[in-house]
């Protein structure tokens, strides 16, 4: 095809060739100039907010595409031999660059910062870690994270499973009930915190209670309590919020697994006279073990990073501090990047087993 063109009219083919090269260079160059200009504009502009917003949206949505189109054009100019070897990197390159810049390098950098002092000037060895594992306030932080991990995971997964099994037998009520329990999953942790702060609202004894929990307690003859000030039980009132958020999620995932338990298996167990409790523990749970494991690790990973609920409801006061919130405080209140980084690294180390597990399952799947 190219050959016939060349023999047909060298002049024309040279012209189209030049044109193609020119376009292939101009388009990427214009792309990058435009994107850079837009970047500077968004960063420094005092122009009207709406205009900035419009530019931001256009750049955010279409800018990335322009980068790919531009680089692909540049690559098309390369000699045929190299071209096909370079092309895959046009496709994966940007992803690898972003991942390196935002996930890999910062993690390494955090590790480095965790060995430096508050202002990242001097090397202090393991001092930040020693502080975290000896300071009484920090030990409470670690204890609280442990409480969150144990109780949120146990209750969200446990109740999710029980409700999934119950709902499976509830006939036409199933979708309604499941929707209601699943609904909190759409709500942000900040929104949920406001919802529950209102449930826990406290008025002195004798006054009309506007918080649901104190209204119930006083109606039953008890004294109203400031639930979020009640050490150490206040931790459990915060933990309850996350259980409320996550149970529906566990239920939905486990429900699919429960429905996968063969009906014949359940019938056979019933004919043998097994009680429902026995069926639950000795037939259903062993059958869905895989899903149960997955959902448990998923919840663990979510819980260990808990931040929003504590930040909004107590700011970590009254003995309710957790790692992620303390890290935020180290960063913005105490201006101590060393301790903040050390806390981040502790979170990371806690996640390492899951990383290893994921990569191992990938290898097994490949085999």
């Amino acid at each position, binding site marked *: 095809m190219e050959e016939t063109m060349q023999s047909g009219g060298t002049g024309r083919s040279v012209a189209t060739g030049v044109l193609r090269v020119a376009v292939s260079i101009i388009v990427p160059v214009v792309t990058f100039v435009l994107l850079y200009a837009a970047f500077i504009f968004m960063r420094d502009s005092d122009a009207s907010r709406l205009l900035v917003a419009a530019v931001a949206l256009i750049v955010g949505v279409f800018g990335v595409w322009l980068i790919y189109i531009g680089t692909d054009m540049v690559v098309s100019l390369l000699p045929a031999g190299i071209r096909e070897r370079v092309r895959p990197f046009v496709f*994966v390159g940007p992803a690898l660059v972003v991942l390196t810049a935002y996930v890999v390098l910062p993690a390494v950098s955090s590790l480095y910062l965790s060995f430096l002092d508050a202002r990242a000037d001097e090397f202090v060895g393991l001092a930040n870690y020693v502080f975290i594992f000896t300071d009484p306030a920090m030990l409470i932080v670690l204890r609280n994270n442990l409480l969150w991990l144990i109780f949120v995971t146990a209750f969200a997964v446990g109740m999710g499973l029980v409700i999934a099994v119950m709902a499976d037998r509830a006939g036409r009520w199933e979708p309604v009930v499941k929707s209601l*329990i699943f609904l909190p999953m759409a709500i942000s942790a900040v929104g949920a915190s406001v919802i529950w702060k209102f449930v826990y609202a406290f008025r002195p004894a004798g006054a009309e209670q506007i918080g649901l929990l104190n209204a119930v307690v006083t109606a039953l003859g008890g004294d109203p309590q400031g639930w979020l000030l009640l050490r150490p039980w206040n931790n459990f009132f915060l933990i309850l919020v996350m259980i409320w958020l996550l149970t529906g999620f566990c239920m939905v995932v486990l429900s699919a697994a429960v429905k996968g338990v063969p009906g014949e298996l359940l019938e056979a167990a019933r004919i043998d006279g097994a009680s429902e409790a026995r069926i639950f523990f000795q037939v259903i749970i062993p059958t869905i073990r895989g899903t149960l494991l997955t959902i448990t690790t998923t919840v663990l990973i979510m819980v260990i990073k808990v931040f929003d609920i504590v930040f*909004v409801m107590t700011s970590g006061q009254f003995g309710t501090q957790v790692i992620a919130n303390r890290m935020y405080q180290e960063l913005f209140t105490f201006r101590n990047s060393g301790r903040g980084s050390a806390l981040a690294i502790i979170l990371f180390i806690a996640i390492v087993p899951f990383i290893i597990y994921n990569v191992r399952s990938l290898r097994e799947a490949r085999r």
Partner: protein
Amino acid sequence: MSASTKTVKQTKRTDPRKILSSAPLWIALVLIGFLWTLPTAGLLISSFRPAVDIQTSGWWTAITHPFAETTRWTIENYQQVLTAEGMGTAFLNSLLVTIPSVVIPITIAAFAAYAFAWLDFPGRGFFFALVVALMVVPLQTALIPVLRAYVGLDLNGTYLGVWLFHTGFGLPLAIFLLFGYISSLPGEIIESAHIDGASPFTTFTRLVLPLSVPVIASFAIFQFLWVWNDLLVALVFLGTGREVMVVTSQLSALVGERGQDWHILTAGAFVTMIVPLIVFFSLQRYFVRGLTAGSVKG
């Protein structure tokens, strides 16, 4: 298999003894569902009550006596929250933060997933294992270094900075999900496009991308909810300036400033929840799929 479960279900429904014996079960379930919804209902109802009423009587009194003279309803809380309390601006900012934070990672991930699935390059296996490993890295490990870099680059407080951060931590999962789908597309289609002389770029945009819409939609919903509901990233990189705050950071600021003004807080909370709730009710099936697919994330 599915036919047999269907018949089991049907007998379950038509057998009166079964219905009777399952009565305690569904009563318990309805009770659980009711309890689960109660806190949200309290918030929603309170947001339509005048400030004085919220402070002097429990929200349930408005339900037990909906038409009594002492029960008043209002939308003033919403007017105040959207204008004077800055929730309107925050709502726009949230859209501005969220939409590119969904589109950018999806685009980058789709290109990468296609390359991992159908193009050959050195280090492919290693890089994909890296992507899988990065999937659960907590975003906290990146906060301090990225913040320091942003201060140097003057990116702190910009939308671009937040988009890129969400892109970085959305990518591993997006690539993983899209790879699973794109690699299972029939090889003959991709081969034949290649034989017809289509470049990888054309194959990708004309063929692979349109075929991958279902998995893209699932991830888009997940990422949308994730970014919309995020507080930490918005706080760290956008800060707490009135004009840049998103709905979550604005609401959390209101909790700090107006801790006892429940008419503001309830209406404000509902403003932050309305978009996710619409997604939830209109796209529940996809919502579930996206959520379950995307639950493991840094």
